[in-house]
């Protein structure tokens, strides 16, 4: 007798339904096989719990006929012959109902439906474990569909190996895949990762990983198992695409099996045998990049040297070796944090619960710091291609609303390490220093700005400049010593746009508005004598002091808190413009180490006096 007994064998044996020869054969097998004996015991236990026969019953001939006709319509896996006396039908009922219960029971316990052997996961002999290179996020395992159980009549044709892959006689692939339950105990092959590409976003904690692996497929149905324990991978982003023979390979479905976490199984229908390159893509979190800048002003503050850097940080818990690294400049719209998706117990959550809410989290509390390196390769030295004697270039190109920075060659970024790369450098950028005063925004401080444009005239303008921090220094003396001027954040600057860097309060410039006259006039009263309108007139003197050794340009914004105002101003050395409905703006140049002032008079109209201006 080959293999183990089926449950039907056992039931027939238990209720003496099999032929005498078969009864004997089964008995002999049971004597030698502890697994089958255990299974028989479980069946006996199940049957003993049934208390269904409560009274003797009789059956009409007509009903028997109808039952037979009706039952014949439904597909039944197997018919069982009764040879015993009529009274035995009661026992048979117990047996059949028991069979039904067993089906339910076995379904719950995942031991497969057909054979006792299904309690174990069998593997084809040719699948040998060779964990060549357990290096990248997630383990990928090829597991040929190896469970012949639950196959219909067509599945019984062909060799065991063909059945395993769902091949029927005549080299034809079965319409439906053979049953192959996921198991906690697996024996698998681990295909080697051929190369990896990281596309890192800075507007979100997100990296698109694209890796290539060569898989050996068998003609027929193939299961491909992907495991990502202890990583920060978003399982809903998993995607598998054949890079070759795409018309002969069909990735049918991705299954996240019950009870097994951090496992996904692709079902692949292949019309070919042999090695096929596949691309696997997914999102992960933990890698980040940012831009930052260093500016050095010339002594006359008319030009500046600007260096742009990108810094890539790896906090993912993984070492990335020889990865093509790309950075995305831009703000993508995302709905869920990748780290949150990675922590979900069930990839798509559960019904009735909102995604991302009320999810049970992994008891291991997967955090970046706690990730072990089980699936990741050896930590390589920092620096990537250190033997190269020239700086790596960053190739920049626009895509959609974003910019893609591709770092030349490949990079090795071990876990917890960061890497700084020069993005661009430009000398002698003409800059304009501007000092701004707006009491409503900054109080009494004068804010220093350095202004330039991201264009050719300013020796820039090749690509937009990503947002980041900037530190500005100035040359302090002829020897090239530096003085730190200030630091700020820089927003994204499109090509051709002007940028003003806010360097914080200026120490050597001062603006002081002095109210030198205040009058009210033109009061309007209602019939009860209450005030319903009036005018206010203020005369301001704005004193500007420049203690620097260079002349400065000062921009002064004044707000009136009403849209009903009129301004009188006659200083030709100062330019004036209406900024918006409630603000006026003045600009003037102040010579080195000097003080100057100008005056203006503003009348504001209140209450019903607003009508005066409206007219």
């Amino acid at each position, binding site marked *: 007798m080959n293999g183990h007994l089926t449950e039907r064998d056992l039931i027939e044996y238990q209720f003496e339904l099999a032929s005498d020869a078969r009864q004997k054969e089964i008995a002999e097998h049971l004597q030698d096989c502890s697994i089958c004996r255990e299974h028989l015991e479980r069946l006996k236990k199940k049957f003993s719990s049934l208390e269904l*026969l409560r009274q003797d019953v009789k059956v009409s001939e007509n009903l028997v006929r109808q*039952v037979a006709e009706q039952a014949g319509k439904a597909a039944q896996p197997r018919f069982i012959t*009764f040879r015993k006396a009529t009274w035995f039908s009661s026992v048979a009922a117990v047996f059949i109902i028991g069979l039904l219960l067993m089906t339910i029971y076995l379904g719950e316990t995942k031991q497969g439906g057909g054979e006792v052997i299904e309690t174990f996961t069998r593997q084809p002999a040719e699948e040998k474990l060779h964990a060549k290179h357990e290096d990248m996020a997630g383990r990928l395992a090829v597991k040929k569909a190896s469970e012949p159980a639950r196959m219909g009549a067509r599945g019984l044709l062909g060799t065991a190996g063909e059945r395993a892959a769902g091949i029927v006689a005549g080299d034809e692939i079965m319409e439906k895949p053979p049953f192959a339950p996921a198991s906690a105990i697996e024996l698998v092959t681990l295909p080697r990762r051929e190369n990896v590409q990281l596309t890192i976003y800075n507007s979100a904690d997100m990296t698109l990983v694209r890796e290539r692996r060569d898989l050996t497929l068998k003609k027929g149905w193939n299961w491909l198992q992907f495991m990502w324990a202890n990583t920060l991978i978003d399982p809903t982003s998993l995607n598998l695409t054949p890079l070759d023979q795409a018309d002969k390979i069909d990735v049918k479905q991705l299954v996240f099996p019950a009870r097994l976490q951090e496992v996904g199984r692709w079902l692949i229908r292949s019309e070919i045998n042999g090695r096929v390159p596949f691309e696997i893509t997914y999102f992960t979190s933990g890698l980040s990049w940012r831009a930052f800048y260093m500016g050095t002003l010339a002594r006359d503050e008319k030009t500046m040297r600007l260096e742009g850097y990108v810094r890539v940080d790896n906090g993912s818990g993984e070492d990335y070796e020889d990865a093509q690294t790309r950075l995305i400049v831009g703000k993508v*719209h995302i709905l869920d944090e990748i780290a949150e998706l990675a922590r979900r117990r069930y990839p798509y959550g559960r019904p009735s619960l909102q995604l991302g809410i009320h999810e049970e989290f992994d008891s291991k509390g997967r955090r970046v710091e706690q990730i072990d390196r089980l699936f990741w390769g050896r930590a390589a030295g920092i620096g990537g291609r250190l033997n190269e004697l020239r700086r790596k270039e960053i190739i920049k190109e626009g895509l959609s*609303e974003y910019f893609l920075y591709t770092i030349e060659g490949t990079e090795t970024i071990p876990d917890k390490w960061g890497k700084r790369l020069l993005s661009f450098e430009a000398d002698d950028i003409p800059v304009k220093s501007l000092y701004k005063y707006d009491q409503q925004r900054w109080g009494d401080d004068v804010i220093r700005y350095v202004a330039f444009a991201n264009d050719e005239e300013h020796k820039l303008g090749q690509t937009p400049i990503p*947002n980041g921090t900037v530190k500005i220094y100035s040359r302090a003396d002829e020897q090239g010593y530096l003085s730190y001027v200030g630091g700020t954040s820089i927003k994204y600057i499109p090509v051709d746009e002007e940028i003003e860097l*806010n360097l914080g309060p200026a120490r050597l410039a001062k603006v002081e508005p002095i109210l030198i006259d205040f009058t009210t006039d033109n009061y309007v009263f209602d019939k009860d004598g209450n005030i319903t309108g009036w005018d206010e007139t203020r005369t301001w003197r704005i004193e500007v002091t420049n203690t620097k050794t260079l002349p400065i340009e000062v921009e002064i914004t004044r707000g009136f808190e009403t849209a009903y105002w009129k301004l009188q101003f006659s200083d030709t050395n100062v330019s004036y413009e209406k900024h918006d409905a409630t603000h006026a703006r003045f600009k003037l140049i102040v010579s080195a180490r000097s003080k100057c002032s100008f005056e203006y008079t503003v009348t504001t109209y209140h209450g019903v006096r607003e009508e005066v201006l409206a007219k």
Partner: protein
Amino acid sequence: MRSKLIILNAILVLLAGAAVAHARIKLVALPERAATVIRLDNPTATLIEEERVLTLQKGLNKVDFSWKGVLIDVDSIRLRVLDHPGNVTLLSVSYPPNEAALVWQISSDSDYAETVRISYLLSNIDRLVTYKAIADKAESKVDLKSFLVLRNFSGEDFERARVLLDYGEAFEQGIDHEETKQLLFLKAGEVPITKVWTFDAAKLPWDPERLEDRNVGIPVSYRIVNDADSSLGRFALWGGKARIFQDDGHGSTIFLGEDVTALVPVGEKMELYIGDSRDIVVTQRKMKDARINIRKNDDGRIVLYDTDEEITAKIENFKDSAAVLTMIQHIPGQWDMAECNLEYTKKNADTLEFEITLPARTESGPAVKELKMHYNRRNVKP
């Protein structure tokens, strides 16, 4: 072989019949499921329909239906007689106390092996739909794929069931409890898309200068029409999460963004917000805001007035490609447009929509357009 089965089923009938006179029978007295249908056309509830053969005797029959470990909406359970609807009558349904069960009383004018269909709403089994779109480099079309995600946390394993959506062919699929399956069910290549930039003055900051080191991102969307011209239009597209990628021209892709789409009926548009453009800059300012035509009561108090308002918006395109910006402006209440230098469509009483075509930037700088809108709001009460 057949005769043996007859006996077995006959005995089942007898068991059912026996229960009439005695304690209620158990679920096991119902024969095995003959056919199960999981109907997922309603996103809020999943309907299970299963067929079973009941063995009925002439007279009154009681059939017990009970469940354990699953959540069934009791009021949703229906029993339909398929073979002899004129001869078999469902008389009543009883609910045993403290049990997840019900008992059908069925009268039959003869002995029948009756196929019945039991329908019920089962909780914690449902489907999601997700989309994956890969745009070409020129952003003129996408390859669209849609995946059906079956989630079964109902407590019941479905070894084989026919799964029905509200469109398309039914397919056979088994799904175990706690299992999630992702299946490709829609593939459409070269679906035309329109890229849309939208500035809504009610949602976005007006003056970038006031934001210091932050940019105002102009939301960018892809618009897909669910019609035959788009290789779609066969059925409504279900709502779900969509992830959009773009071919980078180097055999790889970049991720552009993701959004959730609502149900898109045939002929309607799906709009997917992918991210923000920082290469189109809008600087909007109110240059005038005054009360005019003031009317007062006898006490001299203002009771009604009009306004005189001016808005300017400078739109700069720093992109090296042209774009069409949809600008949405809002003027509340009753209003008249005194002067407007650009054409607009009145979308509703207080919403104006401008379609502003922006050329690509040139060597001399960004392409600039300016909107000037001079309007009066009428009969405003203080």
